[in-house]
């Protein structure tokens, strides 16, 4: 019995190479074309991987050929970027992938859902048998444990998620927060949506073009306000998200300081994603004002990633334990099945046999 993983990821291939191998095959087609007993195809924007079980050794080229479009199956085109892991290494690789350790953004959780989806799809098509069933169930358990027992998923890394995370650190519940979006760019829209998804209900949009402001306000469930009024709104809002194309700062300490006296016990969180900046950096020196521009957002993202990287060793230790346990249980299960099948017909139900 040979358990293996063949694939390519952001570590070994660029987007063009990934595109070449993505979307041309299914787990079922790999089983039938490559002669595996079980197969599962995991395709994401950063990886294309085949996990398979076979009675005999199946070459990397053979699997790669299955992943290519039918019209272009020349083995010399695709061999180099592929990696191959077998047995223990394959188990370890899957556990790392499911836990987000192998992802481009270490600790991201999207891969967990993608792996589950891939498993469900392969199971529905009948390409998953007892070994891959056990392997993937274990991988999901390991991924959960890694997330629970380490800080691998801690901290935000995108503008939207950083804005939400920081806003929650300042205000707690965001449902009471008043948000003003100044400028109606794409990043503003994404960030505004992220805030709305975390409970913000009072959201106002202001833009030099009122039409664009109305459009964005409608898209995110807010209301538009005239551009001339935005500064006075700083008396009452809690979060200001700004991204205009202004060449000079729109908000300076001189403008904001007098308004702060009226809101001394309420913090003001400002996210300035405009380049050049809309808010004078001196504003951050004012009491109760927390200003984050593109540089500080980048710095927060880097700190989050550094924090996650610190956790890799702890996550690897959890994975190593599980790999050892899993390999041990599989080998014990295999010997028990081989003994049992000599006396009964358990082999007819391999999934049940694997559960033993």
């Amino acid at each position, binding site marked *: 019995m040979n358990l293996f993983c063949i694939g390519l990821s952001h570590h070994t291939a660029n987007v063009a190479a990934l595109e070449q191998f993505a979307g041309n095959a299914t787990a079922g087609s790999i089983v039938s074309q490559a002669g595996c007993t079980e197969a599962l195809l995991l395709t994401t924007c950063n990886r294309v991987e085949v996990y398979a079980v076979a009675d005999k050794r199946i070459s990397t080229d053979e699997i790669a050929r299955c992943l290519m479009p039918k019209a272009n199956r020349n083995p010399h085109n695709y061999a180099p970027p592929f990696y191959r892991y077998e047995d223990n290494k394959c188990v370890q690789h899957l556990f790392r992938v499911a836990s987000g350790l192998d992802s481009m953004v270490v600790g991201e959780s999207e891969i967990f859902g993608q792996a589950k989806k891939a498993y469900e799809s392969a199971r529905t098509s009948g390409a998953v048998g007892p070994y891959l069933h056990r392997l993937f169930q274990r991988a999901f358990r390991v991924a959960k444990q890694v997330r629970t027992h380490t800080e691998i998923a801690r901290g935000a890394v995108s503008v939207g998620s950083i804005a939400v995370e920081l806003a929650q*650190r300042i205000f707690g519940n965001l449902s009471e927060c008043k948000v003003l979006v100044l400028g109606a760019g794409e990043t503003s829209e994404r960030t505004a949506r992220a805030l709305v998804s975390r409970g913000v209900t009072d959201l106002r949009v202001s833009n030099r073009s009122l039409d664009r402001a109305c459009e964005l306000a409608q898209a995110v469930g807010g209301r538009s306000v005239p551009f001339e009024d935005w500064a006075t709104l700083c008396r009452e809002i809690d979060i200001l998200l700004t991204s205009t194309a202004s060449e000079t700062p729109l908000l300076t300490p001189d403008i904001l300081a007098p308004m702060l006296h009226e809101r001394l016990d*309420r913090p003001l969180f400002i996210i300035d994603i405009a380049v050049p900046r809309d808010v004078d950096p001196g504003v951050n020196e004012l009491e109760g004002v927390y200003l984050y521009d593109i540089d500080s957002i980048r710095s927060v993202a880097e700190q989050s990633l550094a*924090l996650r990287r610190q956790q890799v060793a702890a996550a690897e230790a959890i994975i190593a334990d599980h790999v050892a346990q899993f390999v041990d249980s599989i080998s014990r299960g295999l010997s028990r099945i081989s003994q049992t099948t000599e006396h009964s017909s358990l082999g007819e139900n391999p999934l049940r046999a694997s559960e033993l």
Partner: protein
Amino acid sequence: VDRYLLIASTLCFLAAVVHTVIELRTGVFRPMRFNFFAIGLGFIFQTAFLSIRGHELGRCPITNLFEVFVFIAWSVALIYMLVGPAYRLSLMGAFTAPLVFLLQSFALVAPIDTRHPAKVPANSWLEFHASISLVAYGAFGLACIAGVMYLLQERQLKTHHLHSIFYHLPPLTNLFAAITRLLWWGFALYTVGIVSGFFTGHPLPRVQVVAAIALWLLYAAILQARHLKWLAPKRVAALCIIGFSAALALLWGITFTAELHPVP
């Protein structure tokens, strides 16, 4: 036996401190229940200690500086046990444990456990006055801890340097609400303590009365400034730390003068 109980209690708080330090050194602070249980066990030992001491003395065990420090530590732990779950469970404990550990360590190490040669007769008003004031100190102590947490969180947000602990600290606005509530509770209890002091039937040293009223005025001023929004939350948090330091200094002075001139 009672000192052993206090040592056991102090070791429980030390365990919580060490646990927190280890987690912080590894760059991870995970909200585990360890601190809560360590503090809970320490609190049980504290209570046992105070109970034995109380039986031995035949009155509330606050007859010398040693007992007063232990009683304050007990009050801080008590209020933490009552309000801790309202915050992030272990994190409030992470900040409470060092304070209690320091108070009890000092009480154990310093030569301040001077026993009175004869049993001091109980005065129920005096005991009520002293114990309610010390519980108020516990509330002020916890407000001080919440103030430290606020300043820590605020600094990280201002400087954009986010440590692992940042993600476990309560939000700024929640911390400030907690500070305000603890200040009000402490202030109300302290007011009751001061008023009951006038019913003890004995003339209190003028220095004590003036210092106690000065402390009451300090907290009244903080609360008034908070109510009228004269002070930014950061200043209120800083004043909580200053106020509690002043309260401890005052307590030292009161106990010191009480030992020099004991109330008959």
